[in-house]
């Protein structure tokens, strides 16, 4: 097979994958008697057509940056962390416990403490699968899946029997105190000129962007990141170089869990302002698609998160204004994972054929 130019590998392969996913999605819509063009219009209009729509798109983007970075970080250590969902829910628990612990004097303090709490709880939930993988060879994919289910059950128990205030019917925690209220984009001077209506996107967006930079720096500029990437490429070689596998697996998974947990600052603290059942709403899983689409690079993850933010807000608009079920976005998500993660070889072969065709038409270049 011919090699692809680097720019094609980095940019064209994900774009073609996305295009294929879009084509199949359109076919799915046609087959259930809906118009793909109309659906796309509704999505673009609802997600990108107004500052209000952007406020929602960026809100989802924030969550997806965190979970995408989470999957990416573990991926570089060759760990496929499917447990982002459970880790995010535990992160939500961390946020709730911190927010409810004190009558916070100012949101900045609450934000710092809640971020820490979310990261700690998310990391803790990743710790057991990480340890079992490192020390007992239990496959991380299966254990993290199991931990998602265990987390869900654990939170149901906590919300029903422990955290629910007396007299409240629905399984949820108490409301967070006023001091734990995070400024939304419409509360921020300057940005409030753009976002005139209340939107859910909030200051957590900036933490997410900062984390993308932090993840990039750790992976490509530090000894730790060097060791993580070396271990991820070849475990026997890492042993030869004296890299401690247990340490790397633990660090990579704890960091991955922490990033997944931190997304809960966005939705639990920034939006719901109390802990609800299934607070992460599948964002942990979307992290897989975001990481694959973003080619496991923080910069790519941010772009892919924006794309999925659009998809999610657009999907919600579909559910509101058309008869297309909101689950359409799960279909697209599955297709993106399929094409970017499992069928990338097909896309590459396709592109290599096309490139070869061009080359043969230009004598002297071949």
């Amino acid at each position, binding site marked *: 097979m011919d090699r692809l130019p680097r720019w094609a590998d980095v940019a064209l392969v994900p774009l073609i994958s996305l295009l294929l996913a879009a084509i199949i999605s359109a076919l799915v819509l046609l087959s259930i008697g809906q118009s793909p063009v109309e659906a796309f219009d509704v999505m673009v209009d609802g997600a990108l057509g107004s500052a209000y729509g952007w406020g929602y798109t960026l809100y989802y983007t924030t969550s997806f940056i965190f979970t995408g970075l989470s999957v990416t970080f573990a991926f570089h250590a060759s760990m496929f962390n499917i447990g982002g969902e459970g880790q995010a829910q535990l992160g939500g628990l961390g946020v709730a416990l911190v927010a409810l612990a004190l009558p916070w004097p100012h949101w900045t303090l609450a934000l710092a403490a809640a971020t820490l709490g979310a990261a700690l709880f998310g990391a803790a939930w990743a710790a057991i699968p990480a340890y079992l993988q490192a020390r007992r060879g239990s496959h991380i994919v*299966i254990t993290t899946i199991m931990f998602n289910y265990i987390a869900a059950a654990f939170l149901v128990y906590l919300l029903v029997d422990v955290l629910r205030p007396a007299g409240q019917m629905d399984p949820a925690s108490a409301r967070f105190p006023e001091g734990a209220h995070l400024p939304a984009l419409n509360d921020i001077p300057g940005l409030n000129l753009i976002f005139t209506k209340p939107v859910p996107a909030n200051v957590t967006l900036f933490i997410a962007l900062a984390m993308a930079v932090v993840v990039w720096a750790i992976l490509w500029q530090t000894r730790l990141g060097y060791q993580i990437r070396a271990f991820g490429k070849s475990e026997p070689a890492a042993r030869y170089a004296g890299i401690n596998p247990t340490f790397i697996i633990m660090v990579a998974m704890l960091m991955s869990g922490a990033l997944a947990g931190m997304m809960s600052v966005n939705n639990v603290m920034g939006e719901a302002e109390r802990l609800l059942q299934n607070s992460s709403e599948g964002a942990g*899983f979307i992290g897989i698609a975001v990481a694959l689409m973003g080619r496991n690079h923080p910069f790519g993850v941010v772009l892919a998160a924006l794309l999925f933010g659009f998809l999610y807000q657009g999907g919600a608009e579909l559910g509101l204004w058309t008869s297309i079920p909101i689950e359409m976005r*799960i279909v697209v998500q599955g297709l993106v994972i399929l094409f970017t993660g499992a*069928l990338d070889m097909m896309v590459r072969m396709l592109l290599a054929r096309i490139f070869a065709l061009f080359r043969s038409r230009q004598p002297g270049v071949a």
Partner: protein
Amino acid sequence: MDYATLLQILDTTLRLATPLLFACLAGLFSERSGIFDIGLEGKMLAAAMASGAVAFLTGSAWLGMLAGIGASLVFAAIHGLASITFRGNQLISGVALNFLASGITVLVAQALFGQGGRTPPLSGAARFNPITLPFADTLQGVPVLGPLYREVISGHALPVYLALAMVPLSWWVLNRTRFGLRLRAVGENPAAVDTAGVSVVGLRYAALAITGILCGLAGAYMATALQAGFGREMTAGRGYIALAALIFAKWRPVAALWACLLFGFFQALALRPDVVQAVVQVKVPVPFLDALPYILTVVVLAGFIGKAIPPRAGGEPYVKER
């Protein structure tokens, strides 16, 4: 706990173990051929929806079952395309197909019936109804065994017995036939099969086809026998429990039966927290009982109960060496 309650729980165990058993054997064929399949869940779900829908539309549980198998086979074929033909990541392909199934089942069910992603309730011939085995009533008087036969063994829908029959059949195919020999070989060392002039790709697709059929049966059973129709996410993680049972059983058919019965038993207990409380004398939260199969699976995976050695070529796409 009295004997009647025990029998009731065992009866539920058998019913709940059936989809696990189908899916577990499905995974067994795939993994013994060297293809990881964490998409059992998605195939079951797709099959449940297809069989529920077709059974409702035609009024025939049998046609529903065929449709379920067909839907599951389509997913198996995509998995094969990704992991065999294009040598992609088998885990990612499985995850993708699970999402695809999760979304598309609701979409199709909603488009067909407009009932919020469910199929309408099934009844009569659109379901597999309980079968009373011969002499169930006659032997009822026999102490201990009589009620056991009548309450637990007899009175299940046809797929339950089919699943049980699949256990010795799978064992026989795997160990006594040419196909089984080649299948086991391709999961251990595909190069050996390739140099012997047998198609690695063909064998692995055949294995995935069997996986597809068995997952189809699992899903069809869920929608047309265990319950009366399809509901969104109705498989609720059973595909993953089946996968865990497969590891627990060390990829062997007979052990798979016991593993699935055990996990079915846990699920049955989760439905009867009152009984659990009466036995252990402590109030056990229902979510804990729900989580019990998953917790135990983790314990199994941690290797505290024997070391499980997977097929050697598992998860690795086959590439000819120079």
